[in-house]
């Protein structure tokens, strides 16, 4: 369940993306139908067509919530690892302030770094990854019968959830251990960084493998 569900008490549900008629006297309006034919709407429509599959999905609301939630969890897990890796790899600026320009307090406190760049880039990448992860899930469910789609969604949610937790846990413990090998100028060796990238790469490879296996296994049956 996502934190986005807060304060939803009293709001009408809309399983499978169907329209809910507005209640008389309610502040909740009927779904806004796109008006006109603006360029912005056309761009959105073209860019987001794959995601619209979700609205026609045969998966139950609960199955979809778990499937999407775990896809997002996987993306966030991967995105977090990427963000931290980017901050560690970009890390200190190649040309820090010359020591002669700083006082002793300045040398202790002024550490020019690329961390913010890594952080923001990581956040944006994570949002893109979440879009990709949900799209992958939708692709996996597309064309399946209701029963198979439901089963596939639940399997995907389990796999994604386990991979997300396991890879992030492994990354976290390895990163913690890597603290011992930080150099005096605040850097980590290339091999340490490569090792830290492994949990994420492995999780992604396993997810894709599971996706392929699931598509073949479920898709071949009548």
């Amino acid at each position, binding site marked *: 369940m996502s934190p986005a569900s807060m304060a939803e008490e009293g709001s009408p549900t809309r399983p499978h993306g169907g329209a809910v008629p507005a209640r008389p006297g309610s502040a909740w309006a009927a779904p806004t139908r796109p008006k006109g034919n603006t360029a912005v709407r056309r761009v959105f429509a073209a860019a987001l067509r794959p995601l619209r599959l979700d609205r026609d999905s045969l998966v139950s609301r609960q199955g979809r919530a778990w499937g999407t939630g775990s896809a997002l969890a996987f993306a966030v897990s991967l995105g977090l690892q990427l963000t931290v890796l980017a901050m560690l790899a970009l890390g200190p600026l190649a040309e820090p302030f010359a020591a002669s320009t700083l006082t002793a*307090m300045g040398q202790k406190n002024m550490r020019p770094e690329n961390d913010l760049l890594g952080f923001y880039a990581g956040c944006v990448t994570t949002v893109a990854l979440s879009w990709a992860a949900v799209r992958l899930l939708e692709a996996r469910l597309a064309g399946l019968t209701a029963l198979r789609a439901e089963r596939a969604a639940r399997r995907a949610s389990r796999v994604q959830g386990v991979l997300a937790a396991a890879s992030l846990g492994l990354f976290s413990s390895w990163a913690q251990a890597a603290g011992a090998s930080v150099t005096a100028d605040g850097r980590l060796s290339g091999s340490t960084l490569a090792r830290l990238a492994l949990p994420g790469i492995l999780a992604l490879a396993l997810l894709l493998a599971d996706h392929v296996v699931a598509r073949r296994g479920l898709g071949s049956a009548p």
Partner: protein
Amino acid sequence: MSQPVRPSEARAGLLRRLAGFGIDGVLVSLIVSLVYTPLPAQLAGLVFANDLFFHWDHFVMGPAVAWHHGMALGTDVYSQYGEGWPILLDAISPWLPLGHQNTIWLAMLYGCLHHVGLYVLLRAAVRSRPLAFGGTLAILATSLFSPLVAQHGHPTVLWQWPSLSVLRAPMDVWFFLCLLLHLRRPTATRAVAAGAIAGLGLWLETDTGIFLVGTLAVYGASRFVAAELGSRLPRAVAPAGPTFAASLVALFGVAVTGLAIASRGTIFSEPGAFLAGWIGGVINSSARGVGASYLTYFLRDHGAYLAPALAVLGIGLFAVCDTTVRLLQARATPASVFSGCLGLYALGRCTLFVWRTVPIRLTLAAIPIGVLVVGALAALRRPLAARIAQATGLGPRWLEPILPTFVVLAGVSLLLASPSFRSYPNLWQLARSGPPEPGLVLFPEKTEIAGLPDELRPVIRSIRTVIAEVRSLRSRGEPVAVLDPIKTLVYVETGAPPWRGDASLFLNTWTREDLHALRDAVERDGPEHVIFRSVAPSRAVADSWRALRDTLEQRYVPAHKLGVFERWDRR
């Protein structure tokens, strides 16, 4: 046609509502009793004993004293954190004199109000008293009473660092309350209120104000995308375009008016100088990449805190990603947009952690992350109860209160387990342990800033001597500069105008350029008298101290000793 309400039902409804208000009142009183401390002198003493008010001077007192003496914030005095608090402190000084103890006491009172606001926000968001109360306790346990505060080494409270307190983001709770109300019923008044609060937030605190303004912009964009793609959000009561424009006018109206007042109009006549003194710190940190600690050092020195850091970042990112996907799938709801905005704001607060990667800075994201977690638990309450009911055969109505009860218990346990809470001088601690040791008092005539340890006796004596000396010089109309971190305390207590605003000294003199500028200013425009330490305060600042001392030796002659200080007179 609606059914007429029977008088008995109406009475019962009224009684229920009154009882609800009563319970809310009790819970709010409990929250206030945790934050409020009835010993302002001891609270100020605790802060003084740790850092001689270094952080408060940098945060608000230095700019407040400079503003009080007619200087322009930003242009004449560096006001890194924001412009609003110094002006507000000065505005109320006719009733509550400008002073460190009063400022810390006011901050604590605002902390009480802010946490009441947090309870109201949670109450409005999750519509459950126990969840809101338990959530507020848990957030308190991870921010104001965070165990990290107790790891400082000396007994202290979070109020020692105003930049980690609710003063750093004073408007966030009120802003998100407005946003929530606007999501539920999008009236023009609520949109304008959200804009005005964001503007006020920017005026009071620069960096977190920027995050609020960014959140408001993304909120506006989300509503646009939601409308374009067909998400089902409550229809705006007023036309969206003019409402958005009015919100922007309110935002910039409040912010620009506030900044124009703070700068005494120099924002228009000397924009470059004003911007450098107002937003220079943010630009340094973001554009020039001036951080204070690398992430690698965090791993090396505080590796155990990586998992909590990842959890904080992960919750914020998850909320943002979830909302983005929902918006793009045309499945956004008021709740999802609200949590996305909270997540975005939480990521903004995490920027402060990225700038200075030390564990205690994780507390800065406690409020938005805490609200997101409580919201997720609220959403889980019914499905969880239904699942347990299915397994056990019990009625879900009996099971639904389990989760809120658990949250309250968790909040209470977290509080009781935190050493920072156990040592916090609130009403509960006083009732348990009695009044604290009286200790030394910094100003005996005012009984202010009390409970100081005996080892501070020489420093206290020296400060009193310096204050007496500056008072005497001031009474004779002779200008004096205090070139020491205690300068703001001395200026506040003596009413002497600060020399060149809040000049960087020792602990915050980081570049040789700044040091040379200060030396040049002393040589060129130095006042008749200078108060300076006879020995360097610590080895870490010995180079700055030595450089200033050399300058004094060229232009000034030592007059006499004032405890650990000396008075120097111009040749």
